C-alpha cells in the first residue's frame, strides 16, 4: 500500500485525489510531446526520403556553359530559349570532356530548346531535347511503344502525353507557324515517369535524335549541356575537378555541377523548416507548462495547512520540496509516456500522409524524436513545478498551520 518513499506516496495520492485536474494538465504535455515528436519525425522522414531520391543522382554530373556566377540550377536544360550563341558547349569541348570522363564513366551531349507545339487543334509549349539515339536507348525507359528509329520519330514524357492526349502514332507539329516552317514528328513511344532531375527532365518533354533537333534549330556541334554518369561514386569529385582544370584553365567556360550542392540545399531547407515548425509545436508545450504551473500553484495553495502539519511533525524543507517536484514529475512523466505512445501512432499516420512513405519511420534519426520530445515534456514539467515546490518548502510552519 505504502511505498518505501512516503513522500512519493503523498505526491501520487494528491495527483489521484485531483484526478480530472491532473489528467487535463498531463493532457497538455501529451499534446506538446505528440506535436514535437510528430513534426520532428515528418521532417526527418522527408529529408531521408528526398536524400534517398537524390542519391540516385549522386553519380551524375552536368556540365553547362559558364554564364557568369550561375545560379543553383545553372539554368539547366529547357530554359535555353533565348540563349546566346556563345553559351554552348562546342564539339571540341565535348571531346575534351569525353576524353577525361572515358576512364570513369560515360558522357553524352544534350541539346534543348523550348518551343511551341501543336497537336491537332491544341497548342502548347514543351522542351525539345536532341540526344544521340543510342543514348536515348541507354538512359530512357519507354513505357509504351518503342524507341525512335528515324529522324521524324520521337518519344514523349508521360505528363506531356497525358496533357495533350498523345498516343503512340500521334503527330506533333513543332514550331510557331507564324514565325516560319513547322516540323511534324510522330510519337513512337511514351516514357516512364522520371521525376524532376538535375540532368534531364523528360516528363514534360519531347525527345528526338540530334539530327531532328539540328534539322529544326541548327547549331550542329553546339550543345546546351553535357551529362556525365560516373561509374564509381567516389570518383565524382575527381571527374569534376579534372574537367574544371582542363576547360576552365584560362577562363571560366563551363560550370560543372554535382547533386551534392542540390542535396545540401534541399536538406538544409527542410531542416530549417522542420526546426521552425517544431518551434511552433514547442508553443503547445509552453501552454502545457503554464497549465502545469497553474495546477502546481493550486496544489500548493490548497495544501498550505497540510504543509504546516508536515513541517510541524518533522518534515524537512527539502522533503516538502521533493513532494511537489514529484507531483509535477508524475504529471510530466505520465504525460510524456502517453505522449510518446501516441506520437508513434499519430506520427506514423502523419508521416505516411505527408511524406507518402513510412519506409524511414523506424530509422534511428526519426525515432530519436520520441525520447527527445519526452525529455522536453517531462523536463518542462519539472522546471515549472520547481517554483511552486520551492514556495511550499519555505512556508513558515506556524503560519501554514493557521491556514484553513
Amino acid at each position, binding site marked *: 500500500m*505504502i511505498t518505501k518513499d*512516503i513522500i512519493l506516496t503523498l505526491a501520487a495520492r*494528491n495527483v489521484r485525489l485531483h484526478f480530472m485536474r491532473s489528467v487535463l494538465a498531463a493532457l497538455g504535455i501529451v499534446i506538446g510531446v505528440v506535436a514535437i515528436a510528430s513534426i520532428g519525425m515528418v521532417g526527418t522522414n522527408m529529408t531521408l526520403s528526398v536524400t534517398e531520391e537524390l542519391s540516385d543522382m549522386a553519380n551524375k554530373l552536368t556540365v553547362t556553359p559558364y554564364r557568369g556566377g550561375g545560379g543553383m540550377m545553372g539554368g539547366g536544360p529547357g530554359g535555353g530559349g533565348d540563349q546566346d550563341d556563345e553559351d554552348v558547349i562546342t564539339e571540341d569541348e565535348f571531346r575534351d570532356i569525353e576524353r577525361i570522363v572515358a576512364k570513369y564513366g560515360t558522357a553524352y551531349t544534350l541539346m534543348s530548346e523550348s518551343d511551341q507545339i501543336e497537336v491537332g487543334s491544341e497548342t502548347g509549349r514543351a522542351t525539345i531535347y536532341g540526344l544521340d539515339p543510342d543514348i536515348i536507348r541507354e538512359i530512357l525507359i519507354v513505357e509504351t511503344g518503342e524507341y525512335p528509329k528515324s529522324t521524324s520519330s520521337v518519344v514523349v514524357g508521360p505528363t506531356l502525353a497525358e496533357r495533350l492526349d498523345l498516343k503512340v502514332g500521334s503527330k506533333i507539329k513543332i514550331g510557331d507557324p507564324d514565325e516560319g516552317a513547322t516540323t511534324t514528328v510522330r510519337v513512337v513511344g511514351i516514357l516512364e515517369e522520371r521525376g524532376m532531375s538535375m540532368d534531364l527532365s523528360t516528363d514534360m518533354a519531347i525527345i528526338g535524335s540530334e539530327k531532328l533537333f539540328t534539322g529544326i534549330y541548327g547549331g550542329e556541334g553546339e550543345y546546351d549541356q553535357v551529362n556525365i554518369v560516373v561509374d564509381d561514386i567516389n570518383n565524382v569529385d575527381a571527374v569534376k575537378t579534372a574537367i574544371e582544370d582542363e576547360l576552365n584553365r584560362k577562363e571560366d567556360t563551363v560550370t560543372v555541377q554535382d547533386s551534392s550542392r542540390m542535396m545540401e540545399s534541399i536538406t538544409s531547407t527542410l531542416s530549417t523548416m522542420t526546426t521552425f515548425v517544431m518551434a511552433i509545436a514547442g508553443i503547445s508545450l509552453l501552454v502545457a507548462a503554464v497549465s502545469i504551473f497553474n495546477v502546481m500553484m493550486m496544489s500548493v495553495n490548497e495544501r498550505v495547512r*497540510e504543509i504546516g*502539519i508536515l513541517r510541524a511533525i*518533522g*518534515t*524537512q524543507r527539502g522533503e516538502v520540496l521533493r513532494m511537489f517536484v514529484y507531483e509535477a514529475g508524475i504529471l510530466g512523466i505520465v504525460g510524456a509516456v502517453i505522449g510518446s505512445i501516441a506520437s508513434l501512432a499519430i506520427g506514423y499516420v502523419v508521416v505516411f500522409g505527408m511524406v507518402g512513405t513510412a519506409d524511414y519511420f523506424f530509422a534511428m534519426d526519426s525515432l530519436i524524436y520520441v525520447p527527445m520530445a519526452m525529455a522536453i515534456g517531462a523536463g518542462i514539467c519539472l522546471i515549472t513545478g520547481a517554483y511552486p515546490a520551492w514556495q511550499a518548502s519555505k512556508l513558515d510552519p*506556524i503560519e501554514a*498551520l493557521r491556514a484553513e
Partner: protein
Amino acid sequence: MSGPVIELKGVKKVYNLPSGDVTALNGVDLRIDEGEFVAIMGPSGSGKSTLLNQIGCLDRPTSGDLFLAGKNTREMNDHDLTYLRLTSIGYIFQKFNLIPLLSAYENVEYPYIMKNRKPDDTGRVQHLLSRVGIDEALSAHKPGELSGGQQQRVAIARALVNDPAILLCDEPTGNLDSQTSIQIMEILSDLNQRGRTIVMVTHNPETAAYADRIITIRDGKIV
C-alpha cells in the same frame, strides 16, 4: 536523567506587524523537569500558544534562550530544529491535524518512516494505535472518516511513535465533547504516569486539573 528537560531563559518574542510591533512573549523564564505534567493557562492572546510554539521549536525566540535537554536551540539551524521536532517532540493539536491523504495507520507511521527511512516492521504503530483505542479495522480509515475523538487518539499515537522526550498539547480537548475530553485526558494522564513529560496549553480548568503544575501567563509574562 535529572535536570530540566525544557528551560527558557528570558525568552522574548516580538512580531513585526504592519500595524506595529507586538510583543507576544516578554521575558519568560521557565524550567520544566523530566516527568512533569505542566498546564499553561491564560486568556486569549496572552501568549500561551506562542510559548508552546517556542518550546516546540516551530518558532525561534527574538531574544533569550531555549534549552531542550540541556542543548541551546539558538545554535541550531532549520534542519536541526526540524529533526528535533521529528525525534524529540510530539505535538498534539486542537484540530488534530492529521494528513488527509494518509490512513490513520499511515498517519502514525509517517514520522516513523521519516526518522527510520523504512516502514514500521516492529508492530509499534499498531501497538500504539490499540493503546489509544483504535483497532486494526479503524486504522485503515482516512482521518475524514473518523470522529473527532478518534482523530485525536490517532494524533496521540502519531505524537508518540518516535518516543519523544516531550509531548506538547495545544488545547487537545478544545474540539471535543466533554465525554471524549475525559477519555483523551486520561490517556495523556496515563502517559505522564509512565514518565512522559507533557506541556499542555488549555483554557479549560477541568483539563488543567490533570496537570501537576499550572502556569498562568498574561500579557506575555508568567504570573
